[in-house]
């Protein structure tokens, strides 16, 4: 690997070790992950048992509730692994720190993304075993191994796309100074149209059709449904879809950085 790219790898590695030293934050995330899976597993168990109260159906209902827990474990794994990249970029822009970082021989946004990737990787690796453990405990069943494997692979791609989206939100600080409103709108759309807590399959037909045309569904619902419906063809299709969104989001991030830097060069840090 050339030295020009090696520096970004070194930044990702430093970010990985830096986050590893923040144990309290990691423990907090794991506790939240556990709590959310526990609450939703109780909710779904009670919904399904109310719908299917009798004999053999009860077993099927428990199984369906278990699938939902595994679905949530996967979508929350992607969400909770996300570093708050938009806040880091916003803080750099607002404090003027970005100006000083430009005096180094590397791309500002490239460095931030590398930092984000290191951070993301650490969180994904830390949360994954706990996700498996909690989902098994609260659902009372194991998910299909192949499904988990496919979902995890596509999930990593989805997390990278999400990271790019967060970078784009953070770069809006050049014009807005405070990105929280953009982030909140984005987050609500992602929760609703991405199917964070409920799979899109239970949405009304028109809403599902709309959601599936947007990138949100491929970030959460797509990898989530692979856990209980392992399908290599669908996984490949999703990967291509995510790849296309990654290219588009990458171009958006580069464009925003270039225009933002121009603002900075003319207006100061």
């Amino acid at each position, binding site marked *: 690997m050339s*030295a*020009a790219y*090696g*520096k970004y*790898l*070194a*930044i990702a590695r*430093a970010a990985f*070790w*830096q986050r590893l*030293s*923040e144990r309290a934050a990691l423990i907090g995330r794991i506790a939240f992950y556990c709590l959310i899976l526990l609450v939703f597993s109780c909710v779904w168990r009670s919904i399904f048992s109310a719908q299917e109260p009798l004999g053999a159906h009860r077993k099927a209902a428990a199984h369906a509730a278990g699938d939902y827990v595994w679905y949530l474990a996967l979508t929350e794994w992607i969400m909770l692994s996300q570093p708050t990249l938009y806040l880091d970029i916003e803080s750099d822009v607002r404090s003027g*720190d970005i*100006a*000083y970082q*430009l*005096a*180094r*021989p*590397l791309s500002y946004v490239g460095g931030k993304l590398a930092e984000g990737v290191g951070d993301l990787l650490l969180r994904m690796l830390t949360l994954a075993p706990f996700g498996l453990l909690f989902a098994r405990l609260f659902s009372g069943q194991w998910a299909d191994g192949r499904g988990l494997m496919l979902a995890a692979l596509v999930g990593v791609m989805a997390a990278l796309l999400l990271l790019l989206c967060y970078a784009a939100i953070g770069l809006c600080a050049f014009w807005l100074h405070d990105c929280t409103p953009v982030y909140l709108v984005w987050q609500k759309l992602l929760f609703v149209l991405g199917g964070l807590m409920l799979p899109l399959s239970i949405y009304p037909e028109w809403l599902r059709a709309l959601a599936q045309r947007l990138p949100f569904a491929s970030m959460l619902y797509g990898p989530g449904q692979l856990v209980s419906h392992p399908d290599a063809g669908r996984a490949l299709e999703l990967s291509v879809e995510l790849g296309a969104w990654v290219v588009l989001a990458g171009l958006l991030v580069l464009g925003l950085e270039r225009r933002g830097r121009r603002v*900075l*060069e*003319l*207006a*100061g*840090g």
Partner: protein
Amino acid sequence: MTAAIEVVELRKCFSSRQRAPGLQAAFRELFRPPRLQHVAVDGISFRIARGERVAFVGPNGAGKSTSIKMLSGILHPTSGSAQVLGYTPWRERRQLAYRIGTVFGQRTQLWYHLPAADTFALLARVYERDLSAHRRRLEALIEALELGAELHKPVRELSLGQRMRCEIVASLLHDPDIVFLDEPTIGLDVSAKAAIRDVLREQSRRDGKTLLFTSHDTGDMESVCERAIILHQGRVLVDQPLEVLRREHIRVKLLTLHTVEAECSVDLPGIIVLSRQPHRLELEVDLSRLHVEQVVQHVMARARLQDLTVSDPPMEQIIREIYGRASRAAEAASNAGVGASP
């Protein structure tokens, strides 16, 4: 000597949004916000030779940091030109970045939760350094700045002085030709300041590094630099070697006299008694009215001298006086303008 930095008529204006009071104005400003132009750097020109150590002096808002930002390629000027090591900084920022080092006293390039040693290893990658050359240079800098065990502690556990020494290492590690230092000793104690000043001076003398140094502490300037560029309201007020600066702008001398007698009265015009203690007298002599020799003779006629020290006023006082004169001249010019208007 070839120039490390050459600046010609460099100017930077910022425009900021103005807000008028009232609801009507608020609505109007939604569509056409009024903007106010502010000149931060107003046509400065200077040339700095390779290996020179120059202090950039001025009060807050004089344009020091804006000038350094333009010279390191972070800001585009409104007009004028600058060459730093043959590069136009704002056009060739990335190439220039390999050859300059920066220390901004209130910003950090160290990773907060990691040991400084990890940041140094990362910087070797960022600046694409040969690893064995990097190790040698790191060892030399660690020795010069007396950093040892601190290197392996997380940065958050270091004192301000230790952290600043690490910042200096980080800025010199890639062996830059020019180092821009913006208040590198801010908030440090005497020994930390001295260590940093020694290393910077030594690096410049031995390796020919050019230093451009801004600080509110004139001690930094006196112990590291050989020339001062004094800025005032975005313009160069004085650009002189420190020696010349002292010679041309010193209007007073400080005299400390130790006498056998407990009391000694001095009543000469042009003298201010700064402090009076038994057997000790501190005087400020106005050189435009008196010679030091006259004062000494005057005292010797009244008391027996045990010891005598003659010194220059501190650089801070000299600079304060230069600013005072500039402000008075500006005021006089504006009054003359008002008087001349019909």
